[in-house]
């Protein structure tokens, strides 16, 4: 079955980023396809590579990047939500006159249409948030 995931909560907030990760991992282990994971609102904070948690804590951002690399996942950050929260890739940084970008490996920035498309193209869309 084809799943898409919506994450609307930041990492280290409550538990949505963890549950979304655990669900995604379990779905992949069961042989399902993850069509896309869309990060909206504070969820875009899952995609900054500058995150530096203590060494004995889980690294939520790296965990997404590693899962994306292992399974060729499509991790999409909402552009408007990312701009508001200071998350940029090289193109966005240049376009908005910023001196750096901070998007984590495996993530890309795009529009809300990507969420709508995921909802249409997938058998299931599961929301994790706060």
């Amino acid at each position: 079955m084809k799943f898409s995931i919506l994450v609307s909560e930041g990492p280290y907030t409550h538990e949505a980023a963890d549950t979304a990760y655990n669900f995604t991992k379990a779905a992949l282990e069961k042989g399902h396809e993850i069509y896309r994971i869309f990060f909206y609102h504070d969820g875009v904070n899952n995609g900054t590579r500058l995150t530096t948690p203590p060494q004995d804590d889980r690294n939520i951002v790296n965990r997404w990047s590693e899962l994306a690399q292992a399974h060729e996942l499509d991790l999409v950050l909402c552009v408007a939500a990312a701009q508001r929260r200071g998350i940029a890739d090289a193109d966005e940084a240049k376009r908005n006159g910023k001196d750096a970008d901070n998007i984590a490996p495996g993530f890309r920035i795009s529009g809300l249409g990507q969420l709508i498309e995921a909802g249409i193209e997938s058998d299931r869309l599961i929301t994790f948030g706060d």
Partner: protein
Amino acid sequence: MLHTVNKSPLERNALESCLKHAVKGSAVLLIEDGVYGAMKGTVKSSMVEDAMKDISFYVIRPDLKARGIDESRVIDGIEIIDYHGFVDLAAKYDKTQSWL
């Protein structure tokens, strides 16, 4: 339809709202702080026990464990599942509504 609830019924009314909307034959999965709704002997237990006549209830084992809730304290009839079971439920029901 599968409903997921991730808030404690002792703190927010997400579970209560969910149960007002959930129709006969649907399922409720308690996740994150929502697992407090699966406990026996709380002021909200009877609300869940009444709803169980028409609705199947599930709770995530790792989320119970993270909160130190022993499985013996879960209301009889609520099925304890892991994340793979969550995936199975999401596949089984045609839609999932997350009560946040």
